[in-house]
């Protein structure tokens, strides 16, 4: 972008990049070496034995495979839910006029200060009344409901840059507000919707607190990880495998979609062109 690239940025980023993956290397090393070798520091290489024993044992000892499926279902549904509902609401808040628009918007986008801990107990009691404990809805509803505070903020921020003329032209041509949304605004704000989706996917994939309390039969990976950790055994190797299994999907998703993400989460200067 700025003529021939100088060398020093690569060196600076290289140094940080390698420092940044040290913890990740640590957890990989712990998962593929016998405990005896890593218990005094995974980085010691006085003796190095490669073993996949932990990788084999953990599947037998813990229901990682079904948990993987559960996590995928939950994260996918929560992500789709947010990706469908957020742009619609953001569009309505930005381009349409209706009573209480401003008040509702203020309430929703300021709810981001709410820590997740707030919802645990009241929702727990509500789910109990409704018999929703151990039902996927018990986590999906708060996953999606809580996401609006930041997702609407993100998408609306993007729409601030959306050319008003285009919307107006569409309306003058006789399109109703819904058609305008569906044919004009939505297709042109997909990158921000994707950005929202990626963040939501990452966060719901890694969510621990809500499924820990609301789900029992089919639980997602972070809960299994807490279970592997919550024993009296020395099982850093198993924990590492469980951690890697838990982490790998969001990482891949993130890496695949990072371009959309960067483009969409952008605000005022927006990469809309």
């Amino acid at each position, binding site marked *: 972008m700025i003529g021939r690239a100088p060398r020093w940025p690569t060196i600076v980023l290289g140094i940080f990049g390698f420092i940044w993956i040290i913890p990740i290397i640590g957890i990989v090393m712990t998962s593929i070496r016998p*405990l*005896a070798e890593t*218990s*005094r520091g995974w980085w010691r290489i006085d003796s190095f034995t490669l073993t996949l024993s932990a990788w084999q044992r953990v599947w037998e000892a813990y229901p990682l495979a079904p948990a993987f499926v559960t996590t995928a279902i939950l994260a996918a549904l929560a992500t789709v839910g947010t990706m469908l509902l957020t742009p619609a609401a953001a569009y309505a808040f930005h381009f349409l006029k209706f009573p209480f628009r401003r008040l509702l918007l203020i309430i929703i986008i300021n709810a981001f200060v709410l820590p997740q801990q707030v919802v645990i107990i009241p929702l*727990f*009691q509500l*789910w*109990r009344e409704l018999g929703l*404990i151990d039902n996927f809805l018990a986590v999906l509803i708060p996953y999606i409901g809580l996401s609006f505070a930041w997702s609407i903020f993100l998408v609306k921020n993007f729409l601030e840059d959306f050319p008003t003329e285009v919307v107006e032209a569409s309306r003058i041509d006789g399109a109703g507000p819904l058609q305008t949304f569906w044919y004009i605004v939505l297709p042109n704000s997909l990158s921000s919707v994707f950005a929202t989706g990626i963040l939501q996917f990452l966060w719901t994939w890694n969510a621990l607190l809500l499924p*820990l*309390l609301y789900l*029992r039969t089919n*639980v997602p990976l972070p*809960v299994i990880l*807490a*279970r*592997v*950790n*919550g*024993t*009296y*055994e*020395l*099982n850093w190797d198993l924990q590492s495998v469980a951690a890697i299994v838990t982490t790998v999907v969001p990482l891949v998703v993130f890496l695949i979609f990072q371009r959309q993400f960067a483009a969409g989460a952008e605000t005022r200067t927006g990469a809309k062109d």
Partner: protein
Amino acid sequence: MNMHKLTSKVRRRAVLAGASLAIVLAAMPVLAQDLSGELVILQWQGGTDAEMWQKLEADFTAKNPGVAVRELVVTGQGDMRGPMRTALLGGEKVDIIINTWPAFRAELVDAGILRPIDDLWASAGLDAVLDPSWKDLGSTAGVTYGVNYTYGDRSAIWYKKAHLEKAGVEPPKTWEEFLASLDKLKAAGFAAPIAMPAKYWAHGEWFETLLLRTGGVEAASKLAAHEIPWTDDIVKTTLKKYAELLKAGCCGTPEQMFAGDWDYSADQIFTADASNYLMIGMWMNSRARNDYKLNEGVDYSIFQFPALGLGHDDTSSVDAKEVAVTANGANPAAADAFAVYMVSKDAADILASYGYASPSKNADPSLLGPVQQVATAAVAQSKVQFVLGDLLPGDLVDEYRVQLQKFLQDPSDATIDAVTAAIEAKAQELY
């Protein structure tokens, strides 16, 4: 009705369960249907413990083919009472609750969740199986709720034999010998002979046994019930004894103590060979055997806390696990049968194969490993008191552990006054 089911259940196990049961059964002839239905167990344990429970459940259902056991598994971080409460408040109905906290039992009783088992105790002849002291441990306000199925010595100090040999130390019997051994171990190159895991709670272990040895079980239970204040001289003397350890340079700097949990401390002794003594519960045994691949009784062993010479050296701190039956469970008959099963010989054998001691008279102590045998012998000769940390209300435990951390930072008399006053202030709010 329940009784009939129960006796039938017991009858089929009478051969194993001993003479007293046989007599009960002779008096109550067979009127019985077999047990049936689903038995729901609230399970919060993981790893090997969970595996052992599956064996116990399988054995129980093999004996009672009509019963299907379902585990309601809860997961949590740290204190498992959190997820258990959540499940129970959430309206989950279970038949059996596995409990290891007397304070939690009291809470469950207050909430009307537990069913008293004094009648069961009499009809199943449990007096012949468990000593009265175990019955007391399973009681709240004079009513029995829990059948203790396993216990562990919490006044044992773990060591690696090679370390003591290297320093020319015999397992110390008295406090003076113990203090002297610290110097010898330091001279042998171990900078911090005691691994003190003060990150979360394990630094309280030393306090709790010292308290027993200073004031006896009576004082300790009074303190737990706040019948004597935390500013009492017994507490202060206990802390002064604790301070003797710290002043002898037992454990490195306070910062080092705060940095580790018991896992880390165990590593320091058994794999890093950097420390020598660890005071922790009997779960350490399976860690040493299975994870560190050490030879029980050969590579490592335990000795009971050294004699303090204050007149209460016949005391030990213990932990225990009990099964309690619920008042709202759907299958009380099977729950009762299961509670009785847990102190049978077969159950004790399964427990022993996992290295757990059973308080049942049906248990065969020779099945236990050498280290557990040392521990059970020591407990058998002691007046026992439950781990203090599990008797105190949750809030106070927290304050108590934090104040003990402050004490570790500076074990002076002034700190002892400040620390005891702070715990007392918290206790005043709570009782």
